[in-house]
């Protein structure tokens, strides 16, 4: 029973994660922590394989392998969501790059020098990161 609640929470959290705009450094840090945690968990699983059975028993799943499978599905879904987000971000940059090329080719780069201290707004979409 516990496993149903845990899995549903995980699925909803990941679906919601995709909605939020990624936030640079924090997002990257979480990603790296997740990778380290994943490696640690994998190593522990090798050393204490029976720990999965105990954990499965605790959340109400038959065998450790089943729990592992559920975890794998959730993990796959999560990596799908974060990949989609990263992809959208990359696409945005790629668009700005291609647009700059297209505009410069058609009408030429801005020849009028910006006033001292002024920021040239060509191709800048307002993001600072």
């Amino acid at each position, binding site marked *: 029973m516990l496993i149903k609640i845990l899995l549903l929470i995980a699925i909803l959290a990941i679906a919601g994660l*995709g*909605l939020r*705009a990624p936030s640079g450094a924090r997002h990257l840090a979480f990603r790296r922590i997740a990778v380290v945690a994943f490696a640690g968990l994998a190593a522990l699983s090798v050393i204490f394989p029976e720990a999965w059975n105990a954990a499965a028993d605790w959340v109400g799943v038959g065998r450790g392998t089943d729990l592992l499978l559920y975890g794998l599905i959730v993990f796959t879904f999560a990596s799908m969501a974060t990949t*989609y*987000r990263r992809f*959208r971000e990359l*696409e*945005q940059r*790629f*668009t700005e790059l*291609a*647009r700059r*090329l*297209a*505009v410069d*080719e*058609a*009408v030429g780069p801005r020849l009028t020098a910006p006033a001292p201290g002024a920021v040239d707004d060509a191709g800048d*979409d*307002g993001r600072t990161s």
Partner: protein
Amino acid sequence: MAANPDACLVIPLYNEATVVGDIVRQAREAFDNVVVVDDGSSDDSAAAARRAGALVVQHPVNLGQGAALQTGIDVALRLAGVEYLVTFDADGQHRLDDAVEMVRRLRRDEADVVFGSRFLDGRTQATPLKRTVLRAAVVYSRLTTGVRLTDTHNGLRALNRRAATSFRIRQNRMAHASEIIAKVGSSDLRWVEHPVHILYTDYSRSKGQSVLNAVNILTELLYR
């Protein structure tokens, strides 16, 4: 002959070589400034548009209609004397008379944005399925943006310079229509709707959007 020198037509173009020449030639009679954004066409659409007298901007690769519109807006804003921008489709489904009239309304300062609508009068003939999907889009748009338009997916729009500089289109593909409405809705821009006639020719029908595309648009809006 100077025709609407204070306005610029922005036409996103993707593989329409057979019709774009005529569209641009007709457009140039009503508008001095015609910017065509070739979105990485694989045919000779760009050359045809250039021969017909448009200022052609070429995306090096295909990015999508929303991206093409934003590029066109960027270029149009850099043309001297351009105060009004009109987004116009390359497949011949819009009427130039409607575009001219929409610019006239901007010039009279009735609004900052004029949205074309095919459902303000009974002229436009759409299939029942298309009508249903477009109606659903209207309901969704009203719920999420608070802007009460009668036609949310009409490519014919007119903007003044203030409106065109106040937002950037970030939805590269088809979701840009809803995105523009949302951005107008959350700003202090004044908007009106203008009745327009959509010409569903055999050609535009063959190029038209599959209604299944609504699924893609919804996904892109949700997971931006």
